[in-house]
């Protein structure tokens, strides 16, 4: 496990991955088991809800099918756990180690900053992928317990899209941390982006003024896209991948140029 920076980064997070992964799995199963109750009660109550709130909660019909429920409740809620974990890891991984001085110990060896940057980012991607797969397993197990048929492909597509949303925000945090050396700035900037993005995307359907700003929100490309019906659309997939790449590349260019020191 100590062959290179990538495997070591995975190894040192093993307990975090296990804890967070099990929590994701169990929480997902638990939310799935709530489906029969939500189907009977929540769907009816939504009939009388104003359109503005429906933009947030979804349509009543969506709650009559497990796929609609999964998209609106499971992905929407569990996505935030992936995002929170992603931002925590992104901040702790590079800039956190810099503040502890561990990064300097590594960089005193003949290893390039480029290698350090990308190995740690790849480890972050793998960890979030594992977490997302455990959430996927939770959805499938929950559906199996309820004896409700659910598309495995659709679930995997949903998991991929929520992973990309989480990766967009995580790479943003990673970029800010790598380029500034500030944990506080990285964490708070990513947190603000995550929160404001969510508000913008949920309100955009009822507020025209937010329509253009909504393009900058990662949630726009996943929330309310009816993933089980439509599958992954390229015009939703590509912006998230491009955003991840741009944030990663900017972070890398600035990281290899700046001074590194313990404040």
């Amino acid at each position: 496990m100590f062959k290179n920076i990538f495997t070591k980064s995975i190894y040192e997070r093993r307990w975090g991955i296990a804890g967070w992964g099990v929590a994701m799995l169990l929480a997902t199963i638990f939310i799935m088991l709530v489906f029969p109750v939500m189907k009977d009660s929540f769907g009816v109550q939504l009939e009388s809800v104003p359109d503005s709130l429906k933009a947030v909660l979804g349509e009543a019909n969506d709650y009559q099918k497990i796929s609609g429920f999964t998209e609106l409740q499971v992905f929407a809620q569990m996505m935030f756990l992936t995002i929170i974990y992603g931002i925590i890891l992104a901040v702790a991984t590079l800039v956190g180690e810099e503040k502890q001085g561990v990064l300097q110990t590594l960089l005193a060896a003949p290893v390039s900053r480029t290698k350090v940057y990308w190995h740690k980012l790849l480890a972050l991607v793998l960890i979030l992928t594992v977490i997302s797969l455990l959430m996927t397993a939770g959805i499938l197990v929950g559906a199996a317990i309820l004896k409700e048929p659910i598309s495995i492909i659709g679930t995997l597509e949903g998991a991929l899209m929520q992973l990309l949303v989480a990766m967009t925000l995580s790479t943003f945090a990673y970029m800010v941390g790598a380029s500034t050396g500030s944990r506080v700035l990285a964490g708070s900037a990513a947190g603000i982006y995550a929160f404001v993005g969510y508000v913008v995307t949920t309100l955009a359907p009822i507020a025209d003024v937010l329509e253009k700003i909504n393009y900058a929100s990662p949630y726009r490309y996943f929330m309310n896209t009816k993933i089980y019906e439509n599958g992954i659309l390229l015009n939703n997939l590509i912006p998230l991948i491009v955003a991840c790449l741009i944030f990663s590349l900017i972070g890398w260019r600035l990281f290899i140029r700046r001074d590194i020191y313990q404040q």
Partner: protein
Amino acid sequence: MKDSKITVLNLKNLTKSYGKFRGVEDISLSLNKGEILGFLGPNGAGKTTTINMLLNFMKPDSGYIEIFGLSNQDHGLETRARIGYLAGDMSLDGRMTGWQQLEYLGNIRGVFNHEYISGLADRLSCDLTRKIKNLSRGNKQKVGLISALMHQPELLILDEPTSGLDPIVQAEFNKIILEHKSEGGAAFISSHVLSEVQELCDKVAFIREGKLIANKPLKDIIKGAPKNIRLSADDLTAIKQIQDLRIIKNIHIDGTVLTGIYDDDINLLLSKLARLKLDDISILDADLEAIFMQYYEDTNV
């Protein structure tokens, strides 16, 4: 050219500032193969900033650094492969054992000699099976020291290396550094504990508020340095007479024993003392601490 004259480290007009704050200014010094340089200064003088630039953690605003004749900016990987580095408060991954940490760094370096590392651990009485987070500061420092030495580097860069080490381990550390030197290795040791480097260094550079205020062979610094004087007499009259001569500075009298510092021609002192009736006299080289303070007083305008 003799082996010992090969320059392994060359800093030329190195300047670095942090916005409005001073880092270091116009630092120039060199270190040859087989030499040990003590880089001395109080906290905040610019020692760590200089080391950070040596290791490419920071880029200088102006000036350049050559290590083994190569620019450390352009050949960072090559130069760092031949350097061993130890920070004063070495930060290691607390979740790993000492062995795991060393294996990891060894794999990164492409050099991991289990037998050699075991030998170093034995010499430093270092238990590598325990997790780093469970180690005392001194024991963490030992693991850091092994990580600096384990690939048998040609140049050691040590930033306050013996902080936290007990005197026995410190003595073993000194032996290891002197062995490194005898094998042709060089070392750049920063410290504010002057006695730490006195036993080891061939050259000493003093840094103050980011500027180099002296850079000389240790023997030259000691040669021109004030002497510590200790005189004892049977009665206070002789002690009073010595005091009245006003040639010994910083006089301290304890009963019939006088101590002080003398920084003039030693023959003049002896001729003056010859007229007095003394019990005992000792004239010792000042330690580096006193020399250091003198440099600071002289430049503190």
